[in-house]
């Protein structure tokens, strides 16, 4: 594995007595996209502000390409897109990018290319006040691509975007990662990022609950596949005594099984096809996996 661009070790951040982040550790390598998942108040924005150097850690350390957050080298390496951003309404998209290029000492010649990459060429000289929400968010993304950043911090970049915009958005992020930038983005749920990031970190109540690929998380959760069987009238009792599971009503039965046992169970069901009306197989969804990881730790806490 290459050197990590972002290296967070045992990070704790407090506001007075409130512990916003508690012993969080993870890394993001060059070219890797990591999604930070958590609900409101989980500590995502706090973590971003600590990485930007706006908040100083109570304990632990953050390294941005080998530099301490807030130093010039770290600030040059990072670009940022906050959760809510409103650029000055009277400026045009091109002027907004010229402003940030000036602050980052990046060539102005790059601006047209950036506008093109996020599909804002036609609107480049219109006032930002006339932009739609998706366009403003794309301008924010263009701003985060100024000056060949090594780490992109994107705080809920796609919340409130329609599916098409969201797709385009992730495409631009993938391009940036392909050029070698590390990407840390946050989101409310797994559904939203689906398979668009390399790894996922689940943050809940200020602590990190799980880190890994989506497949890792699904395996760790080991959630059962649920098979719902609808039997013909009066036959449910016989099926229930033979296969187990839960009776829902007169003719419906719900059976949980591990993913490995699924095929065998379906084969056994096949031998009863004369009394079956319908079979529905429900694999655990992304939200179930997320809920499993964030809830499991809540239960551990209350113990």
């Amino acid at each position, binding site marked *: 594995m290459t050197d990590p661009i972002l290296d967070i070790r045992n990070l704790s951040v407090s506001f007075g007595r409130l512990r916003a982040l508690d012993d969080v550790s993870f890394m993001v390598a060059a070219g890797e996209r990591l999604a930070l998942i958590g609900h409101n108040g989980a500590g995502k924005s706090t973590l971003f502000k600590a990485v930007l150097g*706006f908040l100083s850690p109570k304990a632990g350390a953050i390294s941005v390409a080998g530099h301490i957050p807030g130093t010039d080298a770290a*600030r040059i390496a990072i670009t*940022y897109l*906050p959760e809510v951003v409103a650029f*000055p309404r009277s*400026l045009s998209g091109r002027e907004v990018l010229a402003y940030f290029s*000036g602050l980052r000492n990046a060539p102005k010649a790059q601006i047209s290319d950036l506008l093109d990459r996020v599909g804002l060429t036609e609107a480049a000289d219109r006032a930002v006040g006339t932009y739609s929400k998706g366009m403003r968010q794309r301008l924010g993304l263009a701003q985060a691509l100024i000056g060949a950043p090594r780490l992109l911090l994107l705080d809920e970049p796609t919340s409130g975007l329609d599916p098409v915009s969201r797709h385009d958005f992730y495409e631009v992020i993938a391009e940036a990662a392909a050029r070698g930038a590390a990407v840390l983005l946050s989101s409310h749920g797994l559904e939203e990022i689906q398979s668009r990031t390399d790894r996922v970190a689940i943050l809940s109540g200020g602590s990190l609950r799980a880190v890994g690929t989506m497949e890792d998380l699904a395996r760790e959760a080991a959630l059962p596949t649920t098979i719902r069987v609808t039997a013909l009238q009066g036959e449910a009792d016989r099926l229930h005594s033979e296969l187990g599971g839960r009776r829902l009503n007169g003719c419906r039965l719900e059976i949980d099984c591990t993913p490995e046992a699924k095929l065998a169970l379906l084969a056994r069901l096949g031998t009863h096809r004369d009394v079956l009306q319908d079979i529905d197989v429900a694999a655990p969804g992304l939200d179930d996996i997320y809920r499993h990881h964030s809830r499991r730790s809540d239960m551990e806490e209350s113990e």
Partner: protein
Amino acid sequence: MTARIATIFAQEFCMARRNLWVLLATIVLALFALALAFFVAGQGGALDADVLTLTSASLATLSVYLIPLIALLMSYDSFAGEIERGALALTFATPVRRWEVFVAKFLAQTAAVSVSIVSAYAVTGLAVLPFHGAEAEGIAAWLRLMASSVALGAVFVAVGLTLSALSSRTARAAAFAIGTWLLLVVLYDLALLGAIMASGEGTFASHVFPWLVMANPADAFRLFNLASLHAAPVAGIDGLARTLPFPPAAALGALLLWLAATIGIGIARTKRIVP
């Protein structure tokens, strides 16, 4: 450093222009100045001084109210609004220094206020000239008024920016700005007037009172302009201008002290903002 300050300056000044602040402030100031000038001129031979000298005296008294208000209105939202809208976090994430942000905003807004003041008063001065002419003393008074108005505007831009950096909400910043205006421009004078009436002739009137007047940037501005005039009739609190224990230019020093102090506090505060 200079490139970053220039970048922020350009954006801030451009916004002040596009938000019609500069135009609006210019029109308001020019209307008041022209009205005063032609009112003074209308009294004609009743007064034995030239129109510019007399107008600069009245206009100094009016500027004390208008210029701080314009400067505060232009600056109060600058930090608070950007914190609220998330724009400041983006700026602070770049390699820019916090003091550079404050200084650039200060320079841009001071430039915007100055453009308004200079163009409004220049237009008025030029409009008066063809009808009434001017003596050297009148022109000097007019130039003094323009220069010290710019200084007054700069002080209140710095005050507004500092208040904005102190309050992270637009609504609170607005309340602070209006409160400061009322306190420094209106209530302070009333309190001083009350104090001098109550104490009568004594050490307070001769030794404490002049310094209290100087301690307020708005009063220092007015004092500087009125004390420099020899022909204009002044009364009330401004009558003091004749009995100062220090030269009028010292009042400019008071403005500069205010400027340095507020910029210092503002920069220190900007460094502590968590956007």
